[in-house]
């Protein structure tokens, strides 16, 4: 009897407050793995000028199509440009596009989602538009927008944000609707609480977790779309070293110089993987109900 009393007291005591990084990593391996990988890539992108061995834009025809060696770690392409340096700089484009698309679409999606969840008339109109947008495959939508404007990084970002917004709107709207249905909100409204206060205190905090998770997936998706667009020649201008561009330019001589495609491709795959893992890990952590499902 005494033994069980002690254990009960132990259970009720507050947990230790010291935060141990190692324990955090052990408990959340996916977040840790994805996060670390991503940090390495960000590091590579930010310090590209220091890491790159050559000038990524410099054309030296005499050194064309060299296989990887001590001098050119990843070999050279058909213009004699160092693939390693171009790959390192390519990280910049992918990360900038991925992160800005995630940020902008999240903000826009949050605003629209909240409006939809709250105001029925807005909901009816906006959701129809979102359904319509979702009917158009994202690459095509982006392509259509790009066809009509001058090429540039900004345009690419906008063109990718538009097809990604509906996904976020849906998630935010779902959260808002489910919270509004809760009895305590009904009583708060009946008690005269102002809409804005309700929004900020009750609704908004609950949207943050799913929003963050979705935006990591949007980031991964944006990186893939940007690379796809650049690959098709409809993305960032060809002089700018984007992984998609590098791969596109490697097409003609792929059979004799596969490194020009396979290496930037591997980097792209790893980056997207890292972001996806981060998203999965965050989802498991922030929304355990969903974790049990997926």
């Amino acid at each position, binding site marked *: 009897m005494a033994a*069980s009393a002690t254990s009960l007291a132990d259970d009720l005591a507050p947990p230790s407050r010291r935060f141990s990084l190692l324990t955090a990593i052990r408990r959340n391996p996916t977040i840790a793995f994805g996060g670390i990988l991503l940090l390495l890539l960000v590091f590579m992108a930010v310090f590209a000028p220091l890491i790159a061995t050559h000038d990524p834009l410099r054309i030296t025809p005499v050194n064309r199509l060299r296989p990887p060696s001590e001098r050119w770690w990843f070999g050279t392409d058909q213009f004699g440009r160092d693939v390693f340096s171009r790959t390192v700089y390519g990280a910049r484009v992918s990360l900038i596009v991925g992160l800005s698309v995630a940020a902008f679409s999240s903000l826009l999606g949050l605003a629209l989602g909240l409006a939809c969840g709250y105001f029925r008339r807005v909901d009816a109109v906006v959701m129809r538009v979102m359904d319509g947008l979702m009917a158009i495959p994202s690459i095509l939508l982006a392509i259509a927008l790009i066809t009509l404007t001058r090429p540039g990084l900004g345009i690419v970002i906008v063109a990718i944000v538009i097809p990604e917004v509906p996904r976020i709107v849906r998630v935010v709207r779902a959260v808002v609707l489910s919270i509004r249905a809760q009895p305590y909100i009904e009583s708060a409204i009946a008690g005269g609480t102002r809409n804005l206060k309700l929004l900020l205190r009750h609704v908004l905090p609950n949207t943050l977790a799913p929003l963050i998770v979705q935006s990591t997936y949007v980031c991964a998706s944006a990186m893939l779309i940007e690379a796809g667009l650049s690959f098709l020649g409809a993305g960032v201008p060809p002089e700018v070293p984007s992984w998609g561009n590098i791969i596109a330019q490697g097409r003609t001589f792929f059979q004799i110089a596969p490194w020009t495609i396979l290496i930037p491709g591997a980097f792209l795959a790893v980056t997207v993987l890292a972001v996806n893992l981060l998203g999965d890990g965050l989802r498991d952590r922030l929304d355990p109900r969903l974790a049990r499902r997926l």
Partner: protein
Amino acid sequence: MTALLEVRDLHTQFNTLDGVVRAVDGVSFDLSRGETLGIVGESGCGKSVTALSILRLIPAETGRIASGSIRFDGRELTGLDEEAMKRLRGHHISMIFQEPMTSLNPVLTVGTQIAENVVRHLGVPWKAGRERAYEMLGLVRIADARRRLDEYPHQLSGGMRQRVMIAMALSCDPQVLIADEPTTALDVTIQAQILDLMLELKEKTGTAIVLITHDLGVVAETTERVVVMYAGRKVEEAPVEALFERPLHPYTVGLMRAIPRLDVEADIAGKRPRLQEIPGLVPILTRPIIGCAFAARCPLATGRCRTEAPPFVDAGGGHTVACWEVAP
């Protein structure tokens, strides 16, 4: 004559994050042909786990039968391979569960769910299976049975769903029917109907029933013999009249006293008696229990009770009890 079902010193354990839970800690009982046995006890005492253990339905990742013997019709079940167990389930030993709402598959018709049992175990063609399903629906008194065969569970009421479960369970004429809290989730009036139905069917088919419940009222109405369980152990066993007339184990006594009674005169006199509860909490099952499981909450407990587990003593007339103080 050997009993139909013999459970001897059954130990079933679960592996949890907090340690090994001894859900069934040495339970033994017999079930004779055609008998209705009640297993009664509060939530968490191990009665459902005992039932699942008999049919070996404990998921392997979570728990296992650590030791003990379960003999059905002379055959030992604990070492039997899975294929042989599957032939037994639904055919010789059937089980029905507490929640009729969720225990039936929502995307399959009632007829399919009954017929597939018959086809599987009796090897008959599908048409014959459906005919049998129709018969069974009639047996459990479901009106308009032809139409009901092609309906889905969500189109039926709770009471009807439980009838379907019973029909399904009895479709292959099993020798044992294990009913795990079959009426707990139903309205009181429906409860009475279902219990009457079960008894009536038992008369007709001669199936032995193991009725698991926490409701002493149900036990009094339907069973012939009762096993009382506490903290994974059996504490008392008796024919039902004997148990109610002369409960021996302090836990059983406490249970009886805890039943609210309608005492109209006391009410009028303004002297409504207090509900007697059993003080204390159920012991944590992750630690081995030394001595009597009930000792911590027992008004009669002595030092011996806390150190030595009492054996089962025959108190006459098929009434056995495990208590140092009551039956030395």
